[in-house]
């Protein structure tokens, strides 16, 4: 027995000798680039060097490389924005025919929405925009101005009608906690182009953070490497990005050098490729410390650009986030998600379809359109899929609170997408005379997810991850690519 053990010890010594030699011959190239090939065998070496955010291979030729998802938290009213219903205006005040609502469930069933059957006509004026004559309310003239760039999905459908569960559903395809969000699936599938910024970034603006918080950009059972990294509007853009007091960049460099040298020594001693990853993590952290402030520094942007978005320098805003989204994608970030609150228009204080709705539309209209225009001006729109929408829409019936508002509605609501190979100047689906449900081409959340993945060159049925004995997908066992939306 002793001899056997001595044998393996001898082999271990060989291994350490080899690594040591290798290290000293390679270290001039840079830390973290040690090839462990002949040491650990090819497969392991591959794994050791593997970088999960390295641009991955899609399943087929992609139309889009990046995604910017403007998440309108709270549920924007499609009936005051996109889905012009003259019949609803004419019959405002009438009861909705029983056939529409029989057996349906709504939020606030036991309180403010009890027996609410009265139709509420569109509160806003509408007009047509673009070559296809798409309707937009006068609240969003700028978005109307990019009608010819977008596909409007008028018949989006989801399963859950409370905010937090519905947000989870829109982001992860299920109301069950612990599943990965779309941004996590995408970065897991095709990695990221940037080596000095996170691949999946989340920004938020508005009166409050999104309901559900971190679950909305969580990686679920996927490695946490793929979870969304919140970029903050004030203070350090990324948590703990700034050095502690008294630590200059030079001092930080000296510290990281010491850490990495000691880690490298341990790598040699143990042969554990995980240390190689650790070394590279410290190098990337150091790079992020300069690239993230550079990203946030918009002083180099022209006045014309700032005016296009409506950015006020130094003031956190949705407009600022839209500009940052372009800058992120420019630098190789794969998936950017912007949350803006609050779109919850029940009619109560702070939630009216008049003043409060006007406020939120004003906050997002110009910048949303500016992002599409600016991406186009930079030649980036073809590669970047822009998505705009909330977790659900609003009912055609009014909800009587202090003012007439609208309740949550999941049967039909509007989202739009632009760029990334999406057909321009296009409408998918149609709703009935009241905008209650789809009469043509329903676009379920699963279908929207399948379509987004498709544009990125990913087959939603093949992008899977084995967990609890099952191959999980963003679209579960559902989803069809919405062919009518493809350019």
């Amino acid at each position, binding site marked *: *027995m002793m001899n*056997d*053990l001595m044998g393996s*010890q001898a082999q*271990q010594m*060989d291994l350490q000798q080899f690594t040591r030699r290798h290290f000293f011959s390679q270290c001039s190239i840079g830390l*973290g680039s040690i090839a462990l090939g002949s040491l650990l065998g090819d497969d392991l070496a591959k794994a050791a060097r*593997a*970088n*999960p955010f390295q641009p991955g291979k899609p399943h087929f030729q992609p139309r889009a490389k990046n995604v910017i998802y403007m998440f309108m938290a709270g549920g924007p009213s499609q009936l005051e924005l996109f889905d012009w219903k003259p019949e609803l205006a004419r019959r405002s005040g009438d009861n909705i025919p029983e056939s529409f609502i029989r057996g349906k469930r709504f939020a606030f*069933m*036991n*309180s403010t929405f009890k027996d609410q059957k009265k139709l509420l006509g569109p509160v806003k004026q509408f007009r047509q925009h673009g070559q296809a004559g798409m309707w937009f309310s006068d609240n969003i003239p700028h978005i109307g101005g990019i009608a010819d760039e977008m596909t409007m999905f008028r018949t989006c459908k989801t399963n859950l009608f*409370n*905010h*937090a569960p519905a947000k989870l559903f829109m982001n992860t395809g299920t*109301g*069950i*906690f612990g599943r990965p969000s779309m941004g996590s699936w995408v970065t897991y599938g095709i990695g990221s182009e*940037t080596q000095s910024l*996170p691949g999946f970034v989340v920004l938020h603006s508005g009166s409050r*953070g999104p309901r*559900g*918080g*971190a*679950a909305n950009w969580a990686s679920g059972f996927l*490695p946490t*490497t793929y979870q969304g*990294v919140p970029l903050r509007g004030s203070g350090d853009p990324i*948590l*703990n*990005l700034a050095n*502690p*007091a*008294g*630590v200059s960049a030079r001092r930080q460099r*000296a*510290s990281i050098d*010491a850490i990495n040298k000691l*880690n490298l020594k341990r790598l040699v001693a*143990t*042969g*554990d*490729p*995980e240390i190689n*990853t*650790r*070394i*590279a*993590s*410290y*190098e*990337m*952290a150091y790079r*992020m410390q300069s690239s993230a402030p550079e990203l946030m520094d918009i002083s180099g942007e022209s006045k014309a650009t700032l005016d296009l978005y409506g950015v006020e320098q130094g003031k956190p805003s949705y407009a600022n986030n839209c500009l940052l989204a372009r800058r992120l994608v420019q630098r190789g970030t794969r998936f950017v998600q912007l949350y803006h609150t609050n779109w919850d228009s029940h009619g109560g204080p702070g939630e009216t379809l008049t003043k409060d709705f006007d406020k939120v539309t004003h906050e997002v209209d110009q910048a949303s359109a500016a992002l599409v225009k600016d991406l186009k001006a930079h030649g980036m729109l073809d590669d970047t899929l822009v998505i705009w929408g909330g977790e659900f829409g609003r009912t055609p019936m009014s909800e009587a609170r202090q003012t007439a508002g609208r309740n*949550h509605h999941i049967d039909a609501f509007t989202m739009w997408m632009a760029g990334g190979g999406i057909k321009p100047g296009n409408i998918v689906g149609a709703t009935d005379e009241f905008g209650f449900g789809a009469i043509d081409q329903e676009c379920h959340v699963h279908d929207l997810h399948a379509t987004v993945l498709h544009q990125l060159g990913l087959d939603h049925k093949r992008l899977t991850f*084995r967990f*609890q*004995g*099952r191959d999980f997908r963003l679209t579960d066992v559902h989803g069809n690519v919405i062919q009518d939306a493809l350019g």
Partner: protein
Amino acid sequence: MPSFFVSPFIPLNFRRLAEATVLVGALAVDLANTEAVGIDFNRDIRPVLSENCFQCHGPDAAKRKTGLRLDTSEGATEARDGVRAIDLADLAKSELLARITATDPDTRMPPPEANSRLTPEQVTLLSEWVKAGGEYDRHWAFKKPVRQLLPSLAANRRAWAKNAVDVFIAAKQAEASVMPSPQAAKATLLRRVSLDLTGLPPSPVQIAAFVADTSPDAFEKVVDGLLQSPHYGERLGRHWLDTARYADSDGYSHDAGRSMWPYRDWVIDATNRDVSFDRFVIEQLAGDMLPDATLPQRIATGFHRNTQINTEGGVDKEQFRVDSIFDRIATTGEVMFGLTLGCAQCHDHKFDPISQVEYYRLFAFFNNADEPRIEAPTAEVLARRAEHGARVKQLETELSALAKEDAKRKPLEASLAKLKKARPSAATTLVMAKRGKPRTTRRFVQGDFTRPAEEMQPGTPSVLHRLAQPDGDRLDFARWVADRNNPLLARVAVNRMWQHFFGRGIVQTENDFGSQGIPPTHPKLLDWLAVEFMENGWSQKQIHRLIVTSATYRQVSLRRADLERVDPYNKWLGRQARFRLDAEVVRDLALASSGLLSAKMGGPGVFPPQPEGCMDLGQHRKTWKASSGEDRFRRAAYTYRWRNTPHPALKVFDAPAGLAACTRRIRSNTPLQALTLMNDPAFVELAVGLARRLMAEADSAANRIRLGFQLCLGREPDAEELRLLTGLVESQRSEFTVQSAEAKAVVAKAKLLGQATQPAGGDTEFAAWTMAARVLLNLDETITRE
């Protein structure tokens, strides 16, 4: 340069890794065994059928194609239109053979539209199995574990083994021609076992004592001491809190704070007392229904009150009550059975023999509970209350002695009323309680609570052991779960213990022991441990002791070129595993090294510092006022856990947020972790504390570095390491001498913490040592258990 990284050996491309392991497990390695021992249905055949056939020809009756069922022998041998998938009368004529070898895509199975395809090896394997008689066997996990005989070993391997665990490990190593690694150095071993059992590093004094102790049972003595430490419960109990999805807020939209810490403290205490695991389970599922239930037994039922609560406007409460029961069934399945019971919520299970009807029978057990909040007074509060009660009584007695018109009466009445209001308050906690008027349970069509179907009575899945009480209640259910006849509970529990000590379970899919799970690498060891566990009074400490005192556990974790070739994933445990510490231990270790750790146990959650703005990401901007004094430096097990805005330093090291049961933590390795350890003010203050300690407790630079190594790494530095760090201190010192403002800025931090006690050498010296301490706390080895 690579971007965000993840451990290549654990989570990275887990799917590919898992596939590779399945393949290796089911075919490459075991195929070699097949020649010697014949085809084993559970090991060789069931995984292939499950993966490729059960989706359409399995337990789910609703989705079964052409009525053919291949998960049972009866189904496979039944005549359908005169054809049998397996024809026992003439095996060669079995339809299964024809279908899997057909070249015509219309007849070949699996069909082209299926997402699966049989490899040529799998076709051969299935064919051989059918030709040999197509014999089925019950899925291994549904058979009751029996104590396995110890395998016989060659003399050299027998000499290596220290206990029964090693005998099973050595037998597999012999089959795979793997030699074990030598025992780790004593210092390494002590650090490993201390971190594993208490989550705290050994002190330099403890290390020196252990190294000096040459008695043959020196290690066993250390282990026994650690098992008796109150910190044991804080470490091992935290694992159970992961499975219980414990957190201190409601989740969903509002994420309101909740008082739940009495349950957390109950878990830590029960783990420390080594409450027998069957009792531990029964009390958490139905402690409230035990005869004369005590307060702790009621607090224990908080296990299933850790579900989230949606308090946003407009919710249908019944919907979320039903959702929380779905969560309870899924959690019970994963944690106590290693079964994906949740899969049968909407339809029959696709792979395991659990029907949707059986799912709603389980639902019925959970459906008849109320969900109250009760007071959970601690012993201290009870004592204060007793004192208070005595004083009330005293005043009342005085009052009753006075005449009605006595002038003293009024003021006395006033003070009595005041006193009564001042009854010492107690924290509350969420519990289960038996419901007076039972609810009727119905099956929900497709799991949709708005589509109730036929009425269901409580019952358990027929594939498992019998329920003693046919129409039992939640307590009977709890006793059924903890029954010695349950084939799964003990196996699943010892498997998670194994995972804790080796980084991976004997069953790698620790939450799926069903037919889609990866079969155990050491099935006999798993069963032996499970039986040992049950027969030793379900003592977790006994099994922990057995595992950590094994030769297998004591091996070095260093990579070996020969092992990397024959066993790249270390299935046969030719070495120990080297892995990053859990999030809590990362912080606790830094606290302990810096000497700032508070030993205080239990009580409401505390608020260690976190960067500004972290609470903005939830719907409501909650406050996070950093605790001061002792509470600032408590173990991370006591950090307040908001579900929607978890503490960033815990989250970045993969601590679960309590959204769902977590039976295994991911171990990522990212730049955000680097930023946290280097720049997070909470870690910087610990670097300051460590620097102060090094300067106070050691004189020369070399001795300070030695002490730092002892405190953070549990070992002595070598000459090169000493030189590297000395160089850093010297260069930092000279730079700080020039940039004295920077030195002052570093020291200002220490003053804030009341730690700057005029260190010798002044600000410059202190700042330089803070830089060195920060490097030590950032080392990979520091946050790794080797």
